[in-house]
């Protein structure tokens, strides 16, 4: 019953998307006046219906309704409730439904609240959103139906991948999806603007909060995913340039460039073509990402639903959506790009440099990710990984970071470097100082050295825009910028510190032995078997002391699930302000000994703390902008009211 309800709601939502497209497109023509009024309500109802469909799927999973094939394949009655709930999106069909739901909800929300855009652009935007949604509705309804019934009804579900039975991974997809799919709004805005040729500060001010919102979620999603991989996979790695990881990074790079570009457009009516292009590119990267992950053409540990047939369907969607948008761009962009002028050394100039650098990094990541495919087409197999991406990315990232330090200090339109040179000298000296100190330490690689040297200077430079301001009256967006840039410096420090200063110890220890790693002394007490709701484990009991301090109990586990049969490693972490102790228990090494893996990772948590700071910066900026917009609306309302009363 519920499944059928969900399916019907989905069909209705799809039909409404079609109506939205038709009404929106016709509303743009001269005679479409009445139809235009229908578009906003239709978008809202579409969002609600799709949401209803997704809720239906959630209910099915929570009840473990095994008559639905998707539930039978991906769930199990013995699974803890929270993972039954999160299991809704832990599979291809469910995550695709989540995608469509977020898209339609975002579209509905825009239709409901967005009043700043000229009405024609709004129509074109909603029509564009509907057009893209239709493709995905079709994909869902015809090729990945989440509500398909199974017959005969099995006695028990097939369980869920134990790696997904973790709080971090349970909530990582929705965050990412709000980010990925939230960018569809920016895409639709860009399409709308190209269609109606109305690109200007009003357009940018309208688009900005949506871009910020999606970008915040994407930043959090990537940060969460990285931290999850770090503690769950048992080897302390937090980024591997794996194709699926890159698939989440590429939209983020485009969205970062976009949010900077949109600010320039809003403030100075410049960078019109860039902004529209980046709006198209950002969501295109989301779609390309979902294609790469679901089609199976690239080897990845994260890839799910490896199905070339589905991949082909998505590729067709890509070709239509992205190809169409880029064609529209080629045809129309020339006529929208008259904007204000500015000098090379200026805030806008720095942001153009930023755009170019981020686009270059995006290009490198995309090319490197696809290269194995290209090589295979030419007959050989190659692997492209961190030894390529790290240095080549750094070639573009380092100049970009240097400009990030100086850019916010430059004036709009025209400035001279001589004016800021005096201020910037301090962070520059800090960079040189740290570099000099580190030069005497051996064993630090080139990239970590550069990262460590730059981090301090960048952190200091990110605070410089606050210099000379009354801090209580500094606008929130400025605080946002400062926080986000500081977050980048902090994350960079964490990454470089982990690469440069991590210490690893592999030992085969007997109970009672002491292992030392860095400033830690760990006593290995014993191994104990423990049991959980759907797993059993061998747990190592250890006591760790930092530099002779109080003992901390740590319990890493080697866990064995039985549906499906899988072994995972649950690491034990001890977090201090200056780093993390990471402990893993491995196999029985025979002779009463057990494999233990221990790391001391100085300042590694700064990576994710920095990521959260970046997202926080975005949040501050978004709140600041929305608040000032609301204030302006209220002020205008008050003026209109007063005028109305005076007019009586």
């Amino acid at each position, binding site marked *: 019953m519920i499944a059928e309800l969900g399916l019907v709601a989905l069909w209705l939502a799809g039909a409404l998307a079609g109506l939205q497209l038709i009404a929106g497109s016709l509303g743009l023509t001269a005679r479409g006046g009445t139809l235009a009024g229908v578009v906003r309500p239709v978008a809202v109802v579409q969002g609600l219906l799709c949401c209803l469909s997704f809720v239906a799927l959630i209910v099915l999973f929570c009840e473990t309704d095994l008559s639905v094939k998707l539930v039978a394949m991906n769930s199990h009655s013995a699974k803890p409730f929270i993972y039954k709930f999160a299991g809704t999106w832990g599979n291809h069909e469910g995550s695709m439904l989540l995608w469509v739901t977020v898209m339609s909800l975002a579209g509905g929300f825009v239709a409901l609240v967005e009043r700043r855009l000229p009405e024609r652009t709004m129509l074109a935007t909603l029509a564009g959103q509907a057009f893209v949604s239709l493709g995905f509705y079709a994909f869902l309804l015809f090729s990945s139906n989440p509500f398909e019934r199974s017959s005969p009804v099995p006695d028990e579900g097939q369980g869920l991948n134990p790696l997904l039975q973790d709080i971090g991974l349970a909530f990582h997809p929705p965050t990412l999806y709000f980010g990925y799919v939230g960018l569809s709004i920016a895409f639709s805005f860009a399409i709308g603007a190209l269609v109606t040729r109305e690109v200007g500060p009003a357009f940018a001010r309208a688009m900005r909060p949506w871009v910020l919102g999606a970008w915040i979620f994407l930043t959090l999603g990537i940060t969460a995913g990285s931290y999850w991989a770090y503690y769950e996979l048992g080897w302390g790695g937090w980024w591997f340039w794996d194709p699926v990881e890159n698939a989440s990074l590429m939209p983020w790079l485009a969205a970062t460039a976009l949010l900077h570009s949109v600010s320039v457009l809003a403030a100075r009516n*410049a960078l*019109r*073509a860039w902004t529209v*292009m980046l709006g*198209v*590119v950002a969501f*295109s990267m989301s779609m*390309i990402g979902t*294609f790469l992950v679901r*089609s*199976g*053409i690239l*080897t990845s540990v994260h890839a799910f639903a490896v199905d*070339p047939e589905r*991949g*082909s369907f998505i*590729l067709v969607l*890509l*070709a239509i959506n*992205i*190809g169409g948008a*880029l*064609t529209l*761009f*080629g045809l129309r*962009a*020339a006529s929208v*790009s*008259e*904007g*204000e*002028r*500015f*000098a*090379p*050394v200026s805030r806008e*100039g720095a942001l153009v440099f930023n755009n170019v650098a981020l686009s270059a990094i995006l290009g490198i990541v*995309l090319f490197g990710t*696809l290269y194995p*495919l*290209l090589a*295979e*087409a030419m007959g050989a*197999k190659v692997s492209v990984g961190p030894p390529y991406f790290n240095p080549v990315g750094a070639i573009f990232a380092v100049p970009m970071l240097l400009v990030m330090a100086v850019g916010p200090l430059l004036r709009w*339109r*025209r400035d*001279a470097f001589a004016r800021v040179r005096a201020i910037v000298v301090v962070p520059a000296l800090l960079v040189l100082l740290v570099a000099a100190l580190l030069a005497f330490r051996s064993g630090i690689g080139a990239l970590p050295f550069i990262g460590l040297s730059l981090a301090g200077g960048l952190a200091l430079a990110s605070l410089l825009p606050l210099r000379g301001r009354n801090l209580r009256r500094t606008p929130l967006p400025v605080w946002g910028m400062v926080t986000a840039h500081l977050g980048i410096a902090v994350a960079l420090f964490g990454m470089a510190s982990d690469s440069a200063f991590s210490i690893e110890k592999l030992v085969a220890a007997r109970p009672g032995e002491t292992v030392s790693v860095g400033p830690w002394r760990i006593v290995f007490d014993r191994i104990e078997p423990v049991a959980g709701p759907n797993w059993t484990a061998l747990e190592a009991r250890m006591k760790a002391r930092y530099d002779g301090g109080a003992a901390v109990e740590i319990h890493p586990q080697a866990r064995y699930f039985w549906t499906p049969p899988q072994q995972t490693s649950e690491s034990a972490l001890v977090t201090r302000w200056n780093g993390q102790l990471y402990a893993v228990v491995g196999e029985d090494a025979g002779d009463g000994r057990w494999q233990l893996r221990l790391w001391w990772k100085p300042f590694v948590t700064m990576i994710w703390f920095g990521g959260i700071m970046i997202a926080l910066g975005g949040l501050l900026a978004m709140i600041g902008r929305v608040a000032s917009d609301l204030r302006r609306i209220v002020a205008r309302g008050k003026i209109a009211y007063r005028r109305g009363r005076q007019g009586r």
Partner: protein
Amino acid sequence: MSDPAPEAAEVKPRRWTLWLPLALFAGFVALVLIGLMRPADREVASAMIGKPLPEFALRPAFPGRPGLSRADFVTGGKPRLLNIFASWCIPCAVEAPQLAQLAKQGVQIDGIAIRDRSEDVSAFLARNGNPFVRIGADDVSAVQLAIGSSGVPETFVIDGKGVIRYQHIGDIRAGDVPTILRKLAEAQ
């Protein structure tokens, strides 16, 4: 007042910059289409085809057969098959009838057991038949790495001079037997 740097005009972008993204996207689609149309090839082939076998000497994997070394391939001058297998590998059991068939046709087959205890090897051979003339025990995949094999089962055609001539990845099916025979003949 300092001489202002000339302001950049927000020039109309050149045509080619406007169409560049679409062109790049078209390239992407073309590449991906090729990727989708090809069968997914997850196997790693050895790069040692045409190169001589490396020097190695393995102890016997189980008491019933002698151990294996490079010398066994060089003396005698006839092409032989080298089968990499393990008792814990299920497709190895699946290909046993084909190996037996090849052995019956006079092909000399030597085996290398990867990461196996001799009891397990004996049990496996008792269950599935023993087509091997010699079986070496490779406990740490040393020889497997040295010849570029990346899993079990794999079968190599080695010619009379000890040069690797052909690699068959995966279990040998009935349909593969003629190919192997042909490769053996070519290796004469």
